[in-house]
């Protein structure tokens, strides 16, 4: 198949397919579930098929020139393919898990529609090389996540869903103004065109600041992170999808797309961004050590880890960027595993309060082990994947000369170990306080799969690494 068609299908199969799911759901649940998985998995398979193409150093731009700089441009490069493969892989596993998790609840049609729509929009963000189309897909993910967060329809759920939407919308419109600023300087929204016009001059600081608003709200960084822990009331696969794998990575990805790959920032941002990220990493890690709600802890952990990704990406050194990008993959898998395990625990223990749990390793050993594996990956223990990415991030930062920041993040990494162990201890160790069975077979299988992937990503780290190195070259 033509590579352009491939990229096109990666976006539009899930995007259009999502709209068919409610119809399929009227026919049979099995068909709908299978279709949902097929749509997302096809994105994954197709992006795998693109890997040889980008590994050989090629890039591809599909361009339809339109008025006002609104050129519809798709950009197939190694960064996009890496990100697409990562998020569609995790998305597919999460959908697999949903088969078990969501089968007890109402509104399943809506659920699958929104999840697949979300992933499709995500693919749109990844491949889009036009700021306005990027923004459109960006907001579509916001709509989908809004519906997903409020899935259980309690009033408090709605308040939080609305909060998430409003906070991210705030960032998004700021970012939009930033895009308009760029437009006013260059006369185009098309990234390659803007690049040509700017020709290695840095973006105006004001524009960078505005865009960072959007990125930080979406990627839940201090002080805009508040919506993310609150969104923990969503169904667990959704929290995994939103917090771990995909949604929060959108901001990071756009950061990489705009400020690492495409444009230059002025020097001050290389200090400011990691500083904000560092504070975010440390403060949210602190909050994670106090919280007792299992999902809130994992959410705070996400905020904290996102800080590391920003840290890696905002080093001007390519080791750090490699580390940051690998971090996206490793953290995505591990954190999705943590959230999904949390989902199994919460569904079977019927509580989210970790102080009321204990000793669950006896009744749910597989979940416990997977949880532990994923936690190890987040803590950066070899041979799990997280070890490599965290080391590379630190290494990049030190090569960059930001020693003080490195120690700030060292504190964050130490706190990571503390809160993950604390959580593991409360949930799985000690006396058995609560009756809880192991989750359904498909749920446990997907969690085990994620844990195994975290391990495999560490052992075979060179495969993603080679792809990522194509980006930084």
């Amino acid at each position, binding site marked *: 198949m033509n590579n352009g068609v491939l990229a096109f299908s990666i976006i539009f199969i899930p995007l259009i397919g999502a709209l068919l799911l409610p119809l399929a759901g009227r026919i049979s649940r099995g068909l709908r579930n299978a279709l949902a998985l097929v749509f997302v998995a096809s994105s994954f398979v197709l992006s795998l098929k693109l890997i040889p193409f980008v590994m050989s150093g090629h890039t591809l731009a599909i361009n339809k020139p339109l008025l006002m700089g609104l050129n519809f441009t798709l950009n197939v490069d190694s960064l996009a393919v890496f990100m697409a493969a990562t998020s569609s892989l995790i998305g597919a596993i999460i959908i697999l898990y949903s088969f078990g998790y969501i089968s007890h609840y109402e509104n399943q049609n809506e659920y699958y529609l929104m999840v697949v729509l979300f992933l499709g929009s995500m693919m749109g963000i990844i491949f889009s090389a036009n700021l306005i189309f990027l923004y459109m897909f960006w907001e579509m993910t916001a709509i989908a996540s809004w519906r997903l967060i409020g899935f259980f329809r309690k009033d408090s759920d709605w308040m939080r869903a609305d909060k998430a939407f409003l906070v991210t919308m705030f960032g998004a419109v700021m970012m939009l103004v930033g895009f308009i600023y760029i437009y006013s300087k260059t006369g185009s929204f098309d990234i390659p065109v803007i690049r040509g016009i700017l020709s290695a001059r840095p973006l105006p600081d004001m524009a960078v600041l505005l865009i960072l608003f959007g990125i930080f709200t979406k990627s839940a960084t201090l002080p805009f992170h508040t919506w993310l822990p609150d969104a923990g009331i969503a169904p667990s696969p959704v929290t995994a999808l939103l917090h771990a794998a995909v949604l929060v990575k959108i901001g990071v990805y756009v950061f990489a797309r705009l400020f690492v790959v495409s444009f230059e920032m002025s020097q001050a941002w290389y200090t400011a961004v990691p500083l904000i990220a560092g504070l975010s990493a440390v403060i949210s890690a602190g909050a994670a050590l106090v919280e007792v709600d299992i999902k809130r802890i994992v959410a705070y952990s996400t905020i904290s880890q996102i800080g590391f990704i920003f840290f890696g990406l905002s080093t001007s050194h390519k080791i750090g960027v490699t580390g940051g990008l690998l971090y996206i993959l490793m953290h995505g898998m591990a954190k999705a595993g943590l959230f999904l395990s949390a989902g199994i625990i919460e569904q079977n223990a019927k509580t989210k309060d970790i102080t009321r749990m204990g000793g669950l390793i006896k009744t749910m050993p597989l979940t416990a082990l997977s949880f532990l594996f994923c936690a*190890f990956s987040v803590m950066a223990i070899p041979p799990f994947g997280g070890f490599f990415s965290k080391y590379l991030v630190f290494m990049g930062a*030190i090569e960059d000369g930001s020693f003080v920041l490195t120690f700030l993040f060292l504190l964050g990494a130490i706190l990571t170990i503390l809160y993950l162990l604390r959580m593991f201890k409360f949930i799985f160790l000690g006396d058995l306080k609560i009756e809880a069975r192991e989750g359904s077979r498909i749920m446990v299988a997907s969690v085990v799969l994620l844990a195994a992937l975290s391990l495999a990503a560490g052992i075979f780290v060179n495969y993603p690494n080679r792809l990522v190195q194509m980006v930084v070259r």
Partner: protein
Amino acid sequence: MKQIFLPIVTPLAAALLVLCAPKKSNRMKEALALAGAAVNLFVAASLFNKNVNFSAPWLGFGIDLSLRADLLAGFILIAAAGFGFLVTLYSLAFMSDKASAKQFYFYLLVTLCLVNGAVLAENLFLMLFFWEGLLLTLFGMIAIGGKDSYKTAIKAFTIVGVSDLCMMIGIALTAHLAGTLAMSKISLSFTPMAGLAFTLLMIGALAKAGAMPFHSWIPDASLASPLPFMAFLPAALEKLLGIYFLARISLDMFRLSPGAWPSAMLMIIGSATILLAVMMALIQKDYKKLLSYHAISQVGYMVLGIGTALPAGIIGGLFHMINHAMYKSCLFLTAGSVEKEAGSTDLEKLGGIGLKMPVTFACFLIAAMSISGVPPFNGFFSKELLYGAALERGLVFYAAAALGSFFTALSFLKLGHAVYLGRIREENKNVKEAPWGMLFPMIALAAGCVIFGLWNKFPIHNIIQPIVAGEFSESMNAKIILATVIILCAALIHHLVSVKLRKRAINAVDNIHHAPMLSVIYDKAEKRHFDPYDIGLKAVSVFVWSAFLLDRMNDFIYNRLAPGCLGLAGRFISRSHSGNFATYIGWSILGMLIIVIFLMRGL
């Protein structure tokens, strides 16, 4: 297959086989584990005294898969493999009735794999990979100990994990300064940055070796974890690894000289560790816990020796490392025998079993004399080297080391007396000698102590000295020997007098325990007021709560303040829209006037 990969691959393969072994048959996994350890020993032996290099590109950025076997590495390798084999042998008898035996063997073999990898790694990152991987087996081995052992496992994991993170930064910093990750190519002098890097690496090494202040999980683990673990990791392999790496960074990578400040730092840490830990060991009333404090205390000697940055000190430190591994393993194994046969390690419940377990007692005796530095056992010679170097650097360091020896001797006199001598207790009447599977490793290790003592020139000259550049005088300082003898005699006299006075061996050191100032400190120490881990956690929790409050304040802005302001404004606006004609018309007229005036203002 390249030969150099064998020490890594063999135990790993054995470990996976053990994991796959069928549940029902005990023998199968035991045989597999023993075979794995034996093959590993063989492989390690085949690598000894060879220079083998291997290198293949891996992740880029200077991160290569490069391994190197040299004399030091080969030596550590064979020592580790030896301990691995002996502990496996011992465990066959010790763990035979434990449900977690399978996991234990798995962890043990994986540990061997990782240790071998860490020792052989030439690339710093690769070393970190294996080194930090040890966390997993450490966690697992402690956690399978019993019902509450998970708490200790978490403590150990936290302490070692945090220090490994420091080491991660240290490695990155070193690579940045040196421009390479290949250990043999790194040569840094102590600029402030390099000092920082050294300190970070040192934290990793010290934490692995269990020096203060990273020690506090070891005494806990001695009670919580399966005993062969104690003999295997904290007593032997972790010391080997930690001190090996400390030697590597001090000798090869950084040019540690007596004038450099890290040298003084190391010596201070070493002295403090010797004294504080031995003071704690002195008052313990549990066989294993007492030994575990000694395991900490003895690290102090090694750190002190390497910290002197003198050839004699370094050689002494390294020699002490291998000696300590032998006698401390042996001591722990005797503790295991006693535990298995007498059912307890509490000194209150033991006594007079020396005749019932003569072989164990003999092994204990040899090892205890070694650790106390009684000639002609191995401990004596390594300590003499250390004393000489310490004295050269400063009297205070020597004093600390010598005082440490005094207390060590005291505590072992107390321990031996309380356990093996004295009147036998009623419940210990039926105690038998341990099975041969457990005796053999003890005998082997005790024999090692004797051999390395009597023929101490052999290891020093053939193995250790080639590692250290620089000459050192072989002649021993007669004054120091004299002092040592006096110290030992003093300890013996103190013990005899004290037992005479207090009737019971277990109370032999009560005069120190209840000394005016010390008793208060001891009370607090026993209540863990000084546990660096707890202090650290407390400090963290202060920080954590402030972070949490900051986060809540941030939440408050979003959840309360912004909607509140909006509500206030909204209510105000709604209320002003009262539906009153006059008001509305008033607004309109006013608006019109303002517009007109504004437009005409420029005219």
